[in-house]
């Protein structure tokens, strides 16, 4: 059955010109997105809330149908053969959808049985995963009592019960504390070493950088940049030099003296000017010399890693806004946007 359905494809995911509209076409959550995920790689969809990341995952995991465009997952068409696709994927959602009234073990067993696995195999696999994710001690507690990090790990475990070759992770660490985030990253890296293909969405450049080899940046349903994280960083410059002037007069005078030092446009907000530069310390020294020469004193000078905000400012010229209203449209029947994140 699989052989018949599976087209000749080297890609774990191949999505061509996907469009998805909501509200009778008023909202274009995805506006012609094409992406190809090679087998065995970690592919990152980077973008702010409302950029269309979750919509893309929902289409690829057969929860939602595209308005137009085609997509194959493991070589199988997501619209024509959704059931076959479902048998070959694991999905861990943004909201850690485990059943609160079941124990950790019961959650995994339920997902295994619904994947139509053999009963004895399900039990074995559930214990294996609980052990692997450090949840053995909590296996027989209802997940109501779990911390946010434990829920995410169980959620990831649930996605892995049937040992799918492809995993969709929708913002796997959003809302987690730094330690839980590190733990989850290590787990995901372990899975990838084991040969699993991962398509993940994230709002964090740091996360994309650490996990994903190949990245696509989404904004308003369109791809605005793609490449390896190194390529994107080079394009952005490696460092942000943030110069704080004493007043706006100094800022407007000073920016003329230093803007040519940055390969990308300087970003001015009040008395703060951000330059994206390749060799931070050398440029910083240059900035100080130039401004000192013009008699301008600085209130502050800082070098930092580019954040997602910087990526967006550089690529789009606007900030990565948190478009919560739009997020609500994207969620099923506008429900999930209201749910507090764990």
């Amino acid at each position, binding site marked *: 059955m699989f052989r018949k359905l599976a087209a000749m494809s080297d890609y774990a995911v191949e999505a061509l010109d996907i469009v998805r509209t909501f509200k009778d076409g008023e909202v274009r959550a995805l506006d012609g997105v094409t992406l190809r995920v090679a087998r065995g790689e970690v592919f990152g969809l980077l973008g702010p809330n409302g950029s269309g990341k979750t919509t893309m995952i929902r289409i690829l995991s057969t*929860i939602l149908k595209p308005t137009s465009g085609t997509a194959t997952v493991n070589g199988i068409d997501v619209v024509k053969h959704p059931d076959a696709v479902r048998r070959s994927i694991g999905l861990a959602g943004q909201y850690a959808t485990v059943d609160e009234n079941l124990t950790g073990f019961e959650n995994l067993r339920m997902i295994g049985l619904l994947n139509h696995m053999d009963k004895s195999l399900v039990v074995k696999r559930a214990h294996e995963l609980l052990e692997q994710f450090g949840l053995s001690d909590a296996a027989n507690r209802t997940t109501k009592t779990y911390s946010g990090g434990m829920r995410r790990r169980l959620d990831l475990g649930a996605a892995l019960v049937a040992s799918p070759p492809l995993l969709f992770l929708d913002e796997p660490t959003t809302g987690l504390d730094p330690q839980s985030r590190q733990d989850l990253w290590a787990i995901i890296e372990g899975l990838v070493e084991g040969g699993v293909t991962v398509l993940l969405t994230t709002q964090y450049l740091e996360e994309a950088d650490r996990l994903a080899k190949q990245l696509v940046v989404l904004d308003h349903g369109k791809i605005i940049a793609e490449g390896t994280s190194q390529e994107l960083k080079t394009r952005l410059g490696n460092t942000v030099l943030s110069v704080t002037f004493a007043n706006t007069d100094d800022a407007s005078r000073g920016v003329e003296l230093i803007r040519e030092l940055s390969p990308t446009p300087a970003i001015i907000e009040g008395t703060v000017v951000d330059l994206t530069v390749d060799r931070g310390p050398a440029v910083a020294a240059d900035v100080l010399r130039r401004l000192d020469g013009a008699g301008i004193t600085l209130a502050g000078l800082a070098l930092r890693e580019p954040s997602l905000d910087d990526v967006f400012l550089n690529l789009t010229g606007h900030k990565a806004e948190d478009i919560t209203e739009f997020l609500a449209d994207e969620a099923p029947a506008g429900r999930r946007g209201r749910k507090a994140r764990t």
Partner: protein
Amino acid sequence: MSLTTAPTLTPSKSNRSSLRWALSDVLTIARRNLLALVRIPTSLVFAVIQPVMFVLLFRYIFGGVIHIPGVDYVNFLIPGILVQTTIFGAVGTAIGLAEDLQRGLIERFRALPMARMAVLGGRTVADLARNVGVVIIITFVGMAVGFRPTGSFVSYIQACLLMLVFAYCISWGFAFVGLAAPNSETAQAMTFPLIFPLTFASSIFVNVPSMPGWLQPFAINQPVSQCATAVRGLMLGSPHGASTWITLAWSIGAIAILAPLATAQYRKVA
């Protein structure tokens, strides 16, 4: 190409095995819902304590002023309360589905290779199982407060089966409500305007002729009254006309309309 891992996951399926899997999925979901029922104190209170309160309320507080010709009020009351309780169970159907939807669990189910109808099937079957338990409990509570069914044991069982079938068919309408509501609180609120007229403007607690004239045609003919009349007749061994057949007809009609409606709503929202 190199689909080395995917084909080993699941064997191809014949129609017969897919029916078997669909049943297995329904049972898996039903079991999960029943586990939740016993673990959430409020749902147990709703399922068991509330009908017991109704029994005590009408037996000892209102019962003294209600006179039904030719029958002890407690014998009139308990069959009615049993019907009311099984219908009230459908509120749980609505709330449960609204909660699953709200929490994103249904989203997860939709990405699994399980039978589509299992979420609704599993929910309604779990609520049916709960109703079986509640009918047994209320029967014994009723007997403790003086209920003495005068019909045969076989017709008592028939009465129980009739109301369970009727409540099951009606519960699909409440499944629709649960899936149409934006959250579980609203789902619960939405069920009351449906459930109150059906259970209180009925022959469950009082004789319909004691109601105002304009209400009587509705109160006599509406399906819950027909069910109560049939159940009471079977349990007490008294004449109940064609009410059994009318109840069965309502049941078939209800599920024929409500199940497709709920299924369509499930496709739409999930």
